[in-house]
Protein backbone atom coordinates (compact mmCIF):
# COMPACT_ATOMS: atom_id res chain seq x y z
CA UNK A 1 0.00 0.00 0.00
CA UNK A 2 2.58 2.51 1.14
CA UNK A 3 5.01 1.20 -1.47
CA UNK A 4 2.47 1.90 -4.20
CA UNK A 5 1.88 5.36 -2.79
CA UNK A 6 5.62 6.00 -2.91
CA UNK A 7 5.68 4.76 -6.50
CA UNK A 8 2.81 7.10 -7.34
CA UNK A 9 4.72 9.96 -5.78
CA UNK A 10 7.81 8.98 -7.79
CA UNK A 11 5.76 9.10 -10.98
CA UNK A 12 4.76 12.65 -10.14
CA UNK A 13 8.00 14.00 -8.78
CA UNK A 14 10.91 12.19 -10.45
CA UNK A 15 10.45 13.67 -13.93
CA UNK A 16 10.54 17.14 -12.42
CA UNK A 17 13.60 16.23 -10.35
CA UNK A 18 15.30 15.06 -13.53
CA UNK A 19 14.35 18.29 -15.27
CA UNK A 20 15.92 20.34 -12.50
CA UNK A 21 18.97 18.05 -12.27
CA UNK A 22 19.70 18.25 -15.99
CA UNK A 23 19.15 21.98 -16.24
CA UNK A 24 22.08 23.91 -17.68
CA UNK A 25 22.26 26.16 -14.62
CA UNK A 26 25.45 27.95 -15.67
CA UNK A 27 24.02 28.98 -19.02
CA UNK A 28 20.55 29.65 -17.67
CA UNK A 29 20.77 33.45 -17.48
CA UNK A 30 22.02 33.61 -21.06
CA UNK A 31 19.37 31.13 -22.26
CA UNK A 32 16.52 32.95 -20.53
CA UNK A 33 17.67 36.31 -21.85
CA UNK A 34 17.41 35.19 -25.46
CA UNK A 35 14.96 37.15 -27.52
CA UNK A 36 13.09 34.02 -28.57
CA UNK A 37 12.54 33.13 -24.91
CA UNK A 38 11.47 36.62 -23.85
CA UNK A 39 9.11 36.85 -26.81
CA UNK A 40 7.46 33.56 -25.89
CA UNK A 41 7.28 34.57 -22.22
CA UNK A 42 5.58 37.89 -22.95
CA UNK A 43 3.19 36.29 -25.45
CA UNK A 44 2.30 33.53 -23.01
CA UNK A 45 1.58 35.97 -20.18
CA UNK A 46 -0.45 38.35 -22.31
CA UNK A 47 -2.55 35.61 -23.93
CA UNK A 48 -3.07 33.65 -20.70
CA UNK A 49 -4.13 36.85 -18.90
CA UNK A 50 -6.55 37.72 -21.70
CA UNK A 51 -7.90 34.18 -21.68
CA UNK A 52 -8.40 34.32 -17.91
CA UNK A 53 -10.25 37.63 -18.26
CA UNK A 54 -12.50 36.19 -20.95
CA UNK A 55 -13.09 33.09 -18.84
CA UNK A 56 -14.17 35.28 -15.91
CA UNK A 57 -16.59 37.28 -18.04
CA UNK A 58 -18.04 34.19 -19.69
CA UNK A 59 -17.58 31.64 -16.95
CA UNK A 60 -19.25 33.25 -13.93
CA UNK A 61 -22.66 33.55 -15.63
CA UNK A 62 -22.31 30.00 -16.97
CA UNK A 63 -21.47 28.75 -13.49
CA UNK A 64 -24.54 30.55 -12.14
CA UNK A 65 -26.69 28.87 -14.77
CA UNK A 66 -25.12 25.51 -13.96
CA UNK A 67 -25.79 25.97 -10.25
CA UNK A 68 -29.40 26.92 -10.94
CA UNK A 69 -29.79 23.93 -13.22
CA UNK A 70 -29.93 21.78 -10.10
CA UNK A 71 -33.70 22.30 -10.22
CA UNK A 72 -33.98 21.41 -13.91
CA UNK A 73 -35.30 18.13 -15.33
CA UNK A 74 -32.64 15.43 -15.63
CA UNK A 75 -31.97 15.45 -19.38
CA UNK A 76 -31.26 19.16 -20.01
CA UNK A 77 -29.37 19.38 -16.72
CA UNK A 78 -27.08 16.51 -17.68
CA UNK A 79 -26.63 17.82 -21.21
CA UNK A 80 -25.57 21.20 -19.87
CA UNK A 81 -23.11 19.62 -17.47
CA UNK A 82 -21.71 17.37 -20.19
CA UNK A 83 -21.21 20.34 -22.52
CA UNK A 84 -19.09 22.06 -19.88
CA UNK A 85 -17.20 18.90 -18.96
CA UNK A 86 -16.26 17.71 -22.44
CA UNK A 87 -13.44 20.24 -23.08
CA UNK A 88 -12.02 19.21 -19.72
CA UNK A 89 -11.61 15.57 -20.69
CA UNK A 90 -11.00 16.10 -24.40
CA UNK A 91 -7.43 15.89 -25.72
CA UNK A 92 -6.50 19.52 -26.46
CA UNK A 93 -5.50 18.64 -30.02
CA UNK A 94 -9.09 17.61 -30.65
CA UNK A 95 -10.14 21.02 -29.37
CA UNK A 96 -7.70 22.60 -31.81
CA UNK A 97 -9.07 20.62 -34.74
CA UNK A 98 -12.63 21.45 -33.69
CA UNK A 99 -11.80 25.16 -33.48
CA UNK A 100 -10.23 24.96 -36.93
CA UNK A 101 -13.39 23.31 -38.30
CA UNK A 102 -15.46 26.13 -36.76
CA UNK A 103 -13.26 29.17 -37.29
CA UNK A 104 -10.84 28.07 -40.01
CA UNK A 105 -11.13 29.76 -43.38
CA UNK A 106 -13.32 26.94 -44.62
CA UNK A 107 -14.94 26.42 -41.23
CA UNK A 108 -18.61 26.76 -40.39
CA UNK A 109 -18.28 30.29 -39.06
CA UNK A 110 -14.78 31.08 -40.31
CA UNK A 111 -15.81 31.00 -43.96
CA UNK A 112 -18.50 33.60 -43.25
CA UNK A 113 -16.05 35.79 -41.35
CA UNK A 114 -13.61 35.55 -44.25
CA UNK A 115 -16.12 36.21 -47.02
CA UNK A 116 -18.08 38.99 -45.33
CA UNK A 117 -15.53 40.73 -43.19
CA UNK A 118 -12.20 39.56 -44.57
CA UNK A 119 -11.28 38.34 -41.10
CA UNK A 120 -9.27 35.17 -40.61
CA UNK A 121 -8.89 33.86 -37.10
CA UNK A 122 -6.25 31.08 -37.25
CA UNK A 123 -2.59 32.09 -36.97
CA UNK A 124 -3.37 35.15 -34.83
CA UNK A 125 -2.75 35.86 -31.15
CA UNK A 126 -6.54 35.96 -30.86
CA UNK A 127 -6.61 32.33 -31.95
CA UNK A 128 -4.15 31.53 -29.16
CA UNK A 129 -6.50 33.16 -26.64
CA UNK A 130 -9.52 31.30 -28.05
CA UNK A 131 -7.72 27.97 -27.80
CA UNK A 132 -6.78 28.78 -24.22
CA UNK A 133 -10.33 29.80 -23.34
CA UNK A 134 -11.67 26.57 -24.82
CA UNK A 135 -9.48 24.38 -22.62
CA UNK A 136 -9.49 26.47 -19.44
CA UNK A 137 -13.08 27.73 -19.18
CA UNK A 138 -14.38 24.52 -17.53
CA UNK A 139 -11.87 24.94 -14.70
CA UNK A 140 -13.30 28.33 -13.85
CA UNK A 141 -16.91 27.26 -14.30
CA UNK A 142 -16.64 24.28 -11.98
CA UNK A 143 -14.70 26.19 -9.33
CA UNK A 144 -17.31 28.95 -9.27
CA UNK A 145 -20.21 26.53 -9.46
CA UNK A 146 -18.85 24.64 -6.45
CA UNK A 147 -18.64 27.87 -4.50
CA UNK A 148 -22.16 28.87 -5.53
CA UNK A 149 -23.58 25.53 -4.43
CA UNK A 150 -21.96 25.69 -1.03
CA UNK A 151 -22.91 29.34 -0.46
CA UNK A 152 -25.89 30.03 1.75
CA UNK A 153 -28.63 30.96 -0.67
CA UNK A 154 -30.88 32.38 2.06
CA UNK A 155 -28.89 35.62 2.12
CA UNK A 156 -29.82 36.13 -1.52
CA UNK A 157 -33.45 35.57 -0.69
CA UNK A 158 -33.18 38.03 2.18
CA UNK A 159 -31.64 40.68 -0.08
CA UNK A 160 -34.39 40.13 -2.63
CA UNK A 161 -37.16 40.53 -0.04
CA UNK A 162 -35.50 43.79 1.04
CA UNK A 163 -36.02 45.09 -2.49
CA UNK A 164 -32.69 44.44 -4.18
CA UNK A 165 -32.83 43.86 -7.93
CA UNK A 166 -31.44 40.64 -9.39
CA UNK A 167 -28.29 42.45 -10.51
CA UNK A 168 -27.88 44.05 -7.07
CA UNK A 169 -28.26 40.66 -5.40
CA UNK A 170 -25.68 39.17 -7.72
CA UNK A 171 -23.25 42.08 -7.39
CA UNK A 172 -23.50 42.72 -3.64
CA UNK A 173 -24.43 39.34 -2.17
CA UNK A 174 -23.66 36.40 -4.46
CA UNK A 175 -20.36 37.60 -5.88
CA UNK A 176 -18.72 38.40 -2.51
CA UNK A 177 -19.91 35.02 -1.24
CA UNK A 178 -18.24 33.14 -4.06
CA UNK A 179 -15.19 35.38 -4.45
CA UNK A 180 -12.78 32.73 -3.14
CA UNK A 181 -14.16 30.23 -5.64
CA UNK A 182 -13.86 32.74 -8.46
CA UNK A 183 -10.26 33.49 -7.51
CA UNK A 184 -9.37 29.80 -7.28
CA UNK A 185 -10.99 29.21 -10.64
CA UNK A 186 -9.14 32.12 -12.18
CA UNK A 187 -5.80 30.76 -10.92
CA UNK A 188 -6.49 27.29 -12.31
CA UNK A 189 -7.70 28.88 -15.52
CA UNK A 190 -4.53 30.95 -15.87
CA UNK A 191 -2.27 27.98 -15.19
CA UNK A 192 -4.10 25.84 -17.70
CA UNK A 193 -4.03 28.61 -20.30
CA UNK A 194 -0.32 29.16 -19.73
CA UNK A 195 0.39 25.48 -20.32
CA UNK A 196 -1.87 25.10 -23.34
CA UNK A 197 -0.11 23.43 -26.26
CA UNK A 198 -2.14 21.02 -28.38
CA UNK A 199 -5.10 23.20 -29.27
CA UNK A 200 -2.82 26.18 -29.80
CA UNK A 201 -0.36 24.58 -32.22
CA UNK A 202 -3.23 22.97 -34.14
CA UNK A 203 -5.46 26.02 -34.37
CA UNK A 204 -3.13 28.99 -34.06
CA UNK A 205 0.10 27.67 -35.54
CA UNK A 206 3.54 28.73 -34.42
CA UNK A 207 5.05 32.10 -35.24
CA UNK A 208 7.52 33.84 -32.90
CA UNK A 209 5.91 36.78 -31.12
CA UNK A 210 2.45 36.06 -32.51
CA UNK A 211 1.45 32.50 -31.69
CA UNK A 212 4.59 30.73 -30.43
CA UNK A 213 3.85 30.50 -26.70
CA UNK A 214 6.23 29.12 -24.07
CA UNK A 215 5.11 25.49 -24.36
CA UNK A 216 5.39 25.57 -28.16
CA UNK A 217 8.76 27.30 -28.03
CA UNK A 218 9.92 24.66 -25.58
CA UNK A 219 8.71 21.84 -27.83
CA UNK A 220 10.43 23.32 -30.89
CA UNK A 221 13.64 24.06 -29.04
CA UNK A 222 13.80 20.39 -28.07
CA UNK A 223 14.50 19.63 -31.76
CA UNK A 224 17.44 21.91 -32.18
CA UNK A 225 18.63 23.15 -28.81
CA UNK A 226 17.68 20.89 -25.87
CA UNK A 227 19.35 23.26 -23.39
CA UNK A 228 16.99 26.04 -24.40
CA UNK A 229 14.07 23.61 -24.20
CA UNK A 230 15.02 22.66 -20.64
CA UNK A 231 15.42 26.33 -19.72
CA UNK A 232 11.95 27.10 -21.09
CA UNK A 233 10.53 24.09 -19.27
CA UNK A 234 12.09 25.29 -16.02
CA UNK A 235 10.56 28.69 -16.57
CA UNK A 236 7.10 27.15 -16.99
CA UNK A 237 7.65 24.97 -13.93
CA UNK A 238 8.72 27.96 -11.85
CA UNK A 239 5.67 29.96 -12.91
CA UNK A 240 3.33 27.08 -12.10
CA UNK A 241 4.86 26.53 -8.69
CA UNK A 242 4.82 30.25 -7.96
CA UNK A 243 1.14 30.51 -8.86
CA UNK A 244 0.24 27.62 -6.59
CA UNK A 245 2.41 28.69 -3.67
CA UNK A 246 1.29 32.29 -3.84
CA UNK A 247 -2.36 31.40 -3.49
CA UNK A 248 -2.38 28.14 -1.62
CA UNK A 249 -3.60 29.26 1.78
CA UNK A 250 -6.13 31.71 0.61
CA UNK A 251 -8.05 30.07 -2.13
CA UNK A 252 -6.94 26.61 -3.01
CA UNK A 253 -8.15 24.13 -0.41
CA UNK A 254 -6.57 21.31 -2.44
CA UNK A 255 -3.03 22.45 -1.76
CA UNK A 256 -3.40 23.74 1.77
CA UNK A 257 -0.54 22.16 3.68
Amino acid at each position, binding site marked *: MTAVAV*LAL*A*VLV*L*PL*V*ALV*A*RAPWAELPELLARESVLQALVLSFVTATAATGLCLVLGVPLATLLARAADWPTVPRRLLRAAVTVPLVLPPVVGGIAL*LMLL*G*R*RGLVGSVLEDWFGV*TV*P*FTSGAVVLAQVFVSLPFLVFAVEGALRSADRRTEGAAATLGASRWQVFRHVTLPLVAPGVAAGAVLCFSRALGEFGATITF*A*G*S*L*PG*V*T*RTLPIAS*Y*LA*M*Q*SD*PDEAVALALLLLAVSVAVLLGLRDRWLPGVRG
Partner: protein
Amino acid sequence: MRRMPRLALGAGALALAVAAGLAGCAAAGAGTGTNSSPAVSAPTDAAPATITVFAAASLTDAFDELARQYEHAHPNVDVVLNSGGSAALAQQVVEGAPADVFASAAEGPMQTLVDAGLATDPAVFATNTLQLAVPAGNRAGVTGLADLARAELRIALCDESVPCGAASAKLLAQARVTASPDTLESDVRAVLTKVSLGEVDAALVYRTDVLAAGDAVEGIDVPGAASVVNRYPIAALDGAPDAAAGFVAFVTGPAGRAVLAEAGFGAP
Protein backbone atom coordinates in the same frame (compact mmCIF):
# COMPACT_ATOMS: atom_id res chain seq x y z
CA MET B 1 3.22 -2.84 -40.45
CA ARG B 2 2.12 -0.68 -37.60
CA ARG B 3 2.40 2.98 -37.05
CA MET B 4 4.04 3.80 -33.82
CA PRO B 5 1.85 6.12 -31.78
CA ARG B 6 4.05 9.02 -30.83
CA LEU B 7 2.64 9.00 -27.35
CA ALA B 8 3.92 5.49 -26.79
CA LEU B 9 7.43 6.89 -26.91
CA GLY B 10 6.63 9.48 -24.29
CA ALA B 11 4.88 6.99 -22.03
CA GLY B 12 7.74 4.57 -22.47
CA ALA B 13 10.26 7.26 -21.66
CA LEU B 14 8.34 8.15 -18.51
CA ALA B 15 8.17 4.52 -17.44
CA LEU B 16 11.90 4.17 -18.07
CA ALA B 17 12.63 7.34 -16.15
CA VAL B 18 10.62 6.09 -13.20
CA ALA B 19 12.21 2.67 -13.38
CA ALA B 20 15.65 4.24 -13.58
CA GLY B 21 14.81 6.45 -10.64
CA LEU B 22 13.64 3.51 -8.56
CA ALA B 23 16.77 1.61 -9.42
CA GLY B 24 18.70 4.40 -7.78
CA CYS B 25 20.27 5.98 -10.82
CA ALA B 26 18.02 8.99 -11.01
CA ALA B 27 18.63 11.99 -13.16
CA ALA B 28 22.40 12.11 -13.44
CA GLY B 29 23.13 11.96 -17.13
CA ALA B 30 20.01 9.93 -17.80
CA GLY B 31 18.77 10.04 -21.34
CA THR B 32 22.00 10.12 -23.29
CA GLY B 33 21.97 6.35 -23.36
CA THR B 34 22.13 4.04 -26.33
CA ASN B 35 19.31 3.01 -28.57
CA SER B 36 19.39 -0.62 -27.55
CA SER B 37 16.14 -0.95 -25.71
CA PRO B 38 15.32 -4.48 -24.59
CA ALA B 39 11.72 -3.97 -25.68
CA VAL B 40 12.62 -3.91 -29.36
CA SER B 41 16.09 -5.39 -29.71
CA ALA B 42 15.26 -8.26 -31.97
CA PRO B 43 16.00 -11.94 -31.80
CA THR B 44 18.64 -13.36 -34.08
CA ASP B 45 18.54 -14.81 -37.59
CA ALA B 46 15.23 -15.61 -39.23
CA ALA B 47 13.32 -15.58 -35.97
CA PRO B 48 10.51 -13.02 -35.88
CA ALA B 49 11.97 -9.54 -35.70
CA THR B 50 10.55 -6.09 -35.23
CA ILE B 51 12.42 -3.12 -36.60
CA THR B 52 11.52 0.41 -35.71
CA VAL B 53 12.09 2.90 -38.51
CA PHE B 54 12.25 6.62 -37.77
CA ALA B 55 11.62 8.46 -41.03
CA ALA B 56 11.36 12.10 -42.04
CA ALA B 57 7.79 13.39 -42.37
CA SER B 58 8.22 13.82 -46.12
CA LEU B 59 8.96 10.10 -46.42
CA THR B 60 5.70 9.06 -44.73
CA ASP B 61 3.85 7.69 -47.76
CA ALA B 62 6.88 6.26 -49.56
CA PHE B 63 8.02 4.45 -46.41
CA ASP B 64 4.51 3.14 -45.75
CA GLU B 65 4.75 1.46 -49.13
CA LEU B 66 8.38 0.35 -48.66
CA ALA B 67 7.58 -1.17 -45.27
CA ARG B 68 4.60 -3.01 -46.75
CA GLN B 69 6.70 -4.46 -49.57
CA TYR B 70 9.55 -5.40 -47.25
CA GLU B 71 7.19 -7.16 -44.86
CA HIS B 72 5.66 -9.00 -47.79
CA ALA B 73 9.10 -10.26 -48.85
CA HIS B 74 10.15 -11.01 -45.24
CA PRO B 75 7.08 -12.31 -43.40
CA ASN B 76 9.07 -12.76 -40.19
CA VAL B 77 9.86 -9.06 -39.97
CA ASP B 78 7.50 -6.48 -38.58
CA VAL B 79 8.33 -2.90 -39.56
CA VAL B 80 7.10 -0.20 -37.19
CA LEU B 81 7.16 3.25 -38.75
CA ASN B 82 7.45 6.50 -36.82
CA SER B 83 7.51 9.61 -38.95
CA GLY B 84 8.06 13.19 -37.87
CA GLY B 85 10.32 16.17 -38.30
CA SER B 86 13.87 14.90 -38.92
CA ALA B 87 15.36 17.12 -36.22
CA ALA B 88 12.87 15.94 -33.60
CA LEU B 89 13.39 12.30 -34.54
CA ALA B 90 17.18 12.63 -34.34
CA GLN B 91 16.83 14.26 -30.93
CA GLN B 92 14.55 11.45 -29.75
CA VAL B 93 17.09 8.84 -30.85
CA VAL B 94 19.88 10.69 -29.03
CA GLU B 95 17.67 10.69 -25.93
CA GLY B 96 17.31 6.93 -26.19
CA ALA B 97 14.23 6.33 -28.33
CA PRO B 98 14.30 2.73 -29.57
CA ALA B 99 14.99 3.22 -33.29
CA ASP B 100 16.71 0.69 -35.52
CA VAL B 101 16.76 2.66 -38.75
CA PHE B 102 16.87 6.42 -39.25
CA ALA B 103 16.01 8.09 -42.55
CA SER B 104 16.46 11.86 -42.52
CA ALA B 105 15.35 14.57 -44.94
CA ALA B 106 18.78 16.19 -44.77
CA GLU B 107 22.31 15.34 -43.74
CA GLY B 108 22.27 17.56 -40.63
CA PRO B 109 20.02 15.45 -38.41
CA MET B 110 21.84 12.28 -39.50
CA GLN B 111 25.14 13.93 -38.59
CA THR B 112 23.71 14.46 -35.10
CA LEU B 113 23.47 10.68 -34.74
CA VAL B 114 26.89 10.04 -36.30
CA ASP B 115 28.42 12.57 -33.89
CA ALA B 116 26.65 10.86 -30.98
CA GLY B 117 28.21 7.56 -32.05
CA LEU B 118 24.83 6.01 -32.84
CA ALA B 119 25.15 5.62 -36.60
CA THR B 120 27.98 4.93 -39.01
CA ASP B 121 28.28 5.31 -42.77
CA PRO B 122 24.86 6.69 -43.69
CA ALA B 123 23.98 6.30 -47.37
CA VAL B 124 22.17 8.95 -49.38
CA PHE B 125 19.20 7.20 -50.99
CA ALA B 126 17.03 9.99 -52.40
CA THR B 127 16.89 13.67 -53.19
CA ASN B 128 14.08 16.16 -53.10
CA THR B 129 13.44 19.75 -54.12
CA LEU B 130 10.97 22.38 -53.03
CA GLN B 131 7.83 23.51 -54.74
CA LEU B 132 5.26 26.17 -54.00
CA ALA B 133 2.06 24.54 -52.80
CA VAL B 134 -1.33 26.22 -53.02
CA PRO B 135 -4.81 24.92 -52.20
CA ALA B 136 -6.73 23.56 -55.20
CA GLY B 137 -8.11 26.50 -57.16
CA ASN B 138 -5.35 28.87 -56.06
CA ARG B 139 -7.81 31.56 -55.02
CA ALA B 140 -5.03 33.94 -54.04
CA GLY B 141 -3.51 33.79 -57.53
CA VAL B 142 -0.07 32.76 -56.36
CA THR B 143 2.43 32.48 -59.19
CA GLY B 144 5.90 32.58 -57.72
CA LEU B 145 8.16 32.95 -54.72
CA ALA B 146 7.58 36.71 -54.61
CA ASP B 147 3.99 36.06 -53.52
CA LEU B 148 5.33 34.69 -50.24
CA ALA B 149 6.21 38.27 -49.32
CA ARG B 150 2.60 39.46 -49.67
CA ALA B 151 1.53 40.31 -46.14
CA GLU B 152 -2.18 39.94 -46.92
CA LEU B 153 -1.75 36.26 -47.78
CA ARG B 154 -1.68 33.46 -45.26
CA ILE B 155 1.68 31.74 -45.63
CA ALA B 156 3.00 28.61 -43.94
CA LEU B 157 6.65 27.60 -43.94
CA CYS B 158 8.67 24.95 -42.16
CA ASP B 159 10.59 26.14 -39.12
CA GLU B 160 14.27 26.58 -39.91
CA SER B 161 15.17 23.90 -37.37
CA VAL B 162 13.85 21.21 -39.73
CA PRO B 163 15.30 20.34 -43.16
CA CYS B 164 12.44 21.72 -45.27
CA GLY B 165 12.70 24.99 -43.35
CA ALA B 166 16.44 25.23 -43.87
CA ALA B 167 15.97 24.54 -47.57
CA SER B 168 13.13 27.09 -47.77
CA ALA B 169 15.29 29.75 -46.14
CA LYS B 170 18.07 29.03 -48.61
CA LEU B 171 15.72 29.17 -51.59
CA LEU B 172 14.14 32.43 -50.41
CA ALA B 173 17.52 34.02 -49.74
CA GLN B 174 18.68 32.97 -53.18
CA ALA B 175 15.60 34.58 -54.74
CA ARG B 176 15.98 37.63 -52.48
CA VAL B 177 12.47 37.25 -51.16
CA THR B 178 11.64 38.18 -47.56
CA ALA B 179 8.70 35.95 -46.78
CA SER B 180 5.96 37.00 -44.36
CA PRO B 181 4.96 33.64 -42.89
CA ASP B 182 1.95 33.29 -40.58
CA THR B 183 3.14 30.05 -39.09
CA LEU B 184 6.40 28.10 -38.93
CA GLU B 185 5.59 24.42 -38.56
CA SER B 186 7.78 21.74 -37.08
CA ASP B 187 7.50 19.32 -39.97
CA VAL B 188 6.66 19.52 -43.65
CA ARG B 189 3.48 17.47 -43.34
CA ALA B 190 2.05 19.96 -40.86
CA VAL B 191 2.65 22.65 -43.50
CA LEU B 192 1.06 20.48 -46.18
CA THR B 193 -2.04 19.93 -44.02
CA LYS B 194 -2.50 23.69 -43.65
CA VAL B 195 -2.48 23.95 -47.45
CA SER B 196 -4.82 21.05 -48.12
CA LEU B 197 -7.27 22.41 -45.53
CA GLY B 198 -7.14 25.75 -47.32
CA GLU B 199 -6.04 27.49 -44.13
CA VAL B 200 -3.09 29.08 -45.90
CA ASP B 201 -2.82 30.54 -49.41
CA ALA B 202 0.66 29.28 -50.14
CA ALA B 203 3.51 27.31 -48.62
CA LEU B 204 6.86 25.83 -49.50
CA VAL B 205 6.94 22.04 -49.30
CA TYR B 206 8.76 19.27 -51.14
CA ARG B 207 7.49 18.37 -54.59
CA THR B 208 6.88 14.85 -53.25
CA ASP B 209 4.45 16.29 -50.70
CA VAL B 210 2.47 18.03 -53.43
CA LEU B 211 2.22 14.68 -55.24
CA ALA B 212 1.19 12.88 -52.06
CA ALA B 213 -1.56 15.40 -51.31
CA GLY B 214 -3.37 14.54 -54.54
CA ASP B 215 -6.10 16.84 -55.82
CA ALA B 216 -6.34 19.04 -52.76
CA VAL B 217 -3.03 20.77 -53.44
CA GLU B 218 -1.51 22.31 -56.56
CA GLY B 219 2.23 22.60 -57.05
CA ILE B 220 3.98 25.51 -58.73
CA ASP B 221 7.56 25.12 -59.88
CA VAL B 222 9.84 27.93 -58.83
CA PRO B 223 13.08 28.96 -60.52
CA GLY B 224 16.14 28.11 -58.48
CA ALA B 225 14.52 25.18 -56.67
CA ALA B 226 16.74 22.77 -58.57
CA SER B 227 19.81 24.27 -56.93
CA VAL B 228 18.52 23.72 -53.39
CA VAL B 229 18.55 19.95 -53.18
CA ASN B 230 17.84 18.01 -50.01
CA ARG B 231 19.82 14.80 -49.82
CA TYR B 232 18.16 12.05 -47.77
CA PRO B 233 20.53 9.76 -45.85
CA ILE B 234 19.54 6.46 -44.26
CA ALA B 235 21.40 4.25 -41.78
CA ALA B 236 20.82 1.22 -39.63
CA LEU B 237 21.69 2.34 -36.14
CA ASP B 238 24.49 0.68 -34.22
CA GLY B 239 23.26 -2.33 -32.29
CA ALA B 240 20.15 -2.77 -34.42
CA PRO B 241 19.09 -6.28 -35.48
CA ASP B 242 20.22 -7.67 -38.86
CA ALA B 243 16.81 -7.03 -40.33
CA ALA B 244 17.51 -3.30 -39.99
CA ALA B 245 20.47 -3.53 -42.37
CA GLY B 246 18.25 -5.64 -44.61
CA PHE B 247 15.62 -2.92 -44.71
CA VAL B 248 18.25 -0.27 -45.48
CA ALA B 249 19.60 -2.43 -48.35
CA PHE B 250 16.04 -2.79 -49.62
CA VAL B 251 15.40 0.96 -49.55
CA THR B 252 18.69 1.78 -51.29
CA GLY B 253 18.27 -1.09 -53.79
CA PRO B 254 16.31 -1.22 -57.07
CA ALA B 255 12.94 -2.00 -55.47
CA GLY B 256 13.28 0.91 -53.07
CA ARG B 257 14.44 3.14 -55.88
CA ALA B 258 11.29 2.33 -57.84
CA VAL B 259 8.94 3.18 -54.97
CA LEU B 260 10.79 6.41 -54.23
CA ALA B 261 10.82 7.45 -57.89
CA GLU B 262 7.08 6.77 -58.04
CA ALA B 263 6.63 9.13 -55.09
CA GLY B 264 8.62 11.81 -56.91
CA PHE B 265 11.98 11.55 -55.17
CA GLY B 266 15.10 12.07 -57.24
CA ALA B 267 17.97 9.60 -57.47
CA PRO B 268 20.92 10.20 -55.14
